[in-house]
């Protein structure tokens, strides 16, 4: 098990289930029709994030589950939060402000007014976290795919420069490119895979993990969940933090504020797989085994 702080969610689940049932089954109050939450799937990660979203928002909103069928969104809708790429790709009423979260592989079409709550962590925070974990870190290779990450990489490079780090961007098309990319990796002190679903499968994770262990190069995973499967650490915003950022953006949108195209969750969590790091002898400044790092 990674050394992460696990939050007890049992009680929250019970309360949230009751609230969602009420929201899905009962018509939303008239004042609430200006906002809605559209979920790619009404369970799992998206469901829990929607609960966090509404808690942060401070009021219930109409929630739509795309798994149950295409929803009929009210024309009066002024703003909506789309949970997942599938929800982001839905057609929304004109004039409605769209806040997209939990959709790392999704790129809004050109001219879209949508604001994306990025799945990436805030660059400076991420680099500071990795630097604190790996004091010898000087050159960080970053595996990514496609344009959405390009702008982030630019921000990352700027933040790295401020910290005296060097970013080595490694663009990939498919997971099968990892072996060659890794073999071509020269001079990097660690490598970081950005959250890109198209690059993540069982084999690519094993390739990254085995290479990390064999060559004592820390592998920073895109999420805490993937860290458990065989990575040194991850620094990523949680679904709750993304939901809170989306709720804040939605409130501001309803208030008529202009929002940037991309937002970062204000806080991200550092998750360290101490067992993996110790087994592979990675050059990390690990916390004591009993304590977690988040």
């Amino acid at each position, binding site marked *: 098990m990674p050394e992460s702080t696990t939050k007890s969610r049992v009680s929250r689940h019970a309360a949230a289930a009751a609230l969602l049932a009420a929201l899905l089954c009962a018509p939303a109050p008239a004042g609430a029709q200006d906002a809605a939450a559209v979920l790619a799937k009404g369970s799992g990660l998206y469901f829990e994030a929607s609960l966090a979203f509404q808690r942060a928002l401070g009021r219930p909103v109409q929630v739509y589950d795309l798994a149950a069928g295409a929803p009929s969104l009210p024309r009066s809708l002024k703003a909506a939060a789309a949970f997942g790429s599938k929800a982001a790709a839905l057609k929304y009423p004109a004039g409605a402000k769209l806040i997209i979260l939990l959709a790392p592989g999704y790129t809004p079409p050109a001219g879209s007014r949508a604001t994306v709550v990025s799945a990436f962590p805030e660059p400076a925070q991420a680099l500071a976290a990795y630097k604190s974990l790996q004091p010898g870190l000087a050159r960080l290779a970053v595996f990514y795919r496609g344009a959405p990450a390009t702008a982030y990489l630019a921000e990352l490079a700027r933040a790295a420069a401020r910290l005296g780090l060097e970013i080595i961007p490694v663009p990939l098309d498919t997971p099968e490119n990892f072996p060659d990319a890794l073999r071509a990796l020269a001079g990097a002190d660690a490598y970081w895979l950005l959250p890109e679903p198209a690059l993540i499968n069982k084999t690519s994770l094993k390739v990254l993990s085995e*290479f990390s262990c064999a*060559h004592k190069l820390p592998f920073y995973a895109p999420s805490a969940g993937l860290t458990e499967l065989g990575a040194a650490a991850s620094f990523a915003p949680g679904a709750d933090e993304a939901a809170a950022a989306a709720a804040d953006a939605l409130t501001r949108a309803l208030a008529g504020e202009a929002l940037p195209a991309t937002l970062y969750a204000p806080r991200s969590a550092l998750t360290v797989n101490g067992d993996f790091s110790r087994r592979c002898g990675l050059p990390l400044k690990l916390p004591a085994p009993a304590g977690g790092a988040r």
Partner: protein
Amino acid sequence: MKLRAKFLAFLLPPLLLSGLAIHYFTGRAVSDTLQEEAAAAAAAGAARLLGSSTLDFTAPREQDLLPFLYDLSGGLKASYAYFAGNDGRIVAHTDVGRRGGSLTAQAGRALPGGASYALLGDGPHALMEVLVPVTELRVHSPEELALLGAGAPPGRLGTLALGLPLDAAYITERGIARKNAAILAGVFLAIVLMSFALATLVLRPVRQLALATERIRRGDYGAEIPVTSGDELGELARSFNTMSRTLSGTIVSKNYLDAIVDNMLDMLVVTDLDGVIRKTNRAARAALTPAGLPAEGRHVSALFPGEGSGGRWLDLLRDHGELRDHEDVLRAGPGPGVPVLVSASFILDNEGAKGGIVAVIRDIALRKKYEAEMSRSNEDLQRFAFVASHDLQEPLRTISSYIQLLENKYRATLGPDAERHVDFITGAVQRMRTLVRDLLEYSKINPALRLEDVDTDEALDYVLAVLQDAVAAAGAVVERGDLPVLRADRSHIERLFQNLVLNAVKFNDGGAPRVRVDARPGKGGWVFSVSDNGPGIDPAHGARLFKLFGRLHGKGVPGAGIGLASCKRIVEYYGGEIWFESGPGKGSTFFFSIPSSQQAA
């Protein structure tokens, strides 16, 4: 070192060596077995996965092989897995960084199915690389199988390699090794304890033997030990018992000897070679410690303080090696000394080395007193005999003179009877005179010797001159051998010769006497002999022959029975002896001995 310790010292090294050898070889066997089992299981698992895989190994691609390799390594808990082509080049490796490398050529151990394995590294972090051949998969229809003959074996497409960590096997091996060591330790401890018990059992008779020997050393002769077996130890016990019984029958115990020594009337003193007293018996303690001071530790010269006394008898002992009846004076305390006779000898050990001196000291004060009284009595008696015989001479001469006068004056008047009576009186007076003269001579024999070198040949010449008439009257022939020169009183030697030669001439059967005087070296001196061809003497009469007035013949032969008594007296003054050898009709030979270191007895 005791026998039991020696036994253990002899037993422990081979036990330890065998234990180490067993531990080592068992560990090796366990290690080999575990490794082979792990390798065989891994090879079988890999073969199974290969059999169920649809991968095309004829044209292997890394991206196709990696999922299989990860499944393989994950399923078999391998550290890594890779596939190498027939050229040995690694096509795909779970560590993608090692693609393009070469298959490690290992002289591995063979496994069933053409697989093999080899160890990489040592210790808990060692790896075992299992190589499984990948062969082409031939799929035949039932019709083909029915028609198929013996064909060539399927072609080899490459090698699948698995790197298996041996930490689990190592832990298992260590556990087995620990258990093995514990079992060995237990078994060896049992062996040692049993050996200890066996040694105790075996050594018990030896210990009993040692105790019995100690008892014998302390003087308990006859001590025996139980015979509990018929083996060599039993035989030893029987031999010991026999020896002990023999010893008991032939050697008096120390206590017995101590009792004898302690109850001796004479003093017994044991000193070291320097004369320092080490041990005394009860009589010595009583005599030597009048003031309660122990005699042990004192030098004997302190007990014999006379001029050259204590040292004297020690010196004599050292010079002669033995001392017998040395007369000395013991002064153990204040007051007059005690006359003693000291006899001493060295105490010799088994090698003949001198270890001390044992001296027996006899108190002769009483004897000295009796001797002095006897001496006085003898002197008185001698003086009386001298005076009596001397004073008797005068009346006898008077009687003889007047008888002669009467005979001359009244021979014709008295008649023939009276003449015969006068002859009787004259003969009796003559015999009385001879007797008185002999008694006078006897009494003149003086123990105060005037020692000189006496040529006994000359002494015999003098005697024969004195006896010239008697010898000539008897027609005797006197012969002699080589006669020595010896230290003696000349008058004594002449008296001896005179008495013995005269006896030889006097006692004969009527023929011409033949007398021979001879001498030969005897034990400690000279033995003289005077032999004759006379009628001989019945040995039955020998007892009274040397007594005063001990006559064996009648009145026909002159003599008063004083001659041989005189001879005996003289010889005894010198510490010698006189005896005879004779028989009726065989003549007689009288012997007398004169010791070389003679002194007045």
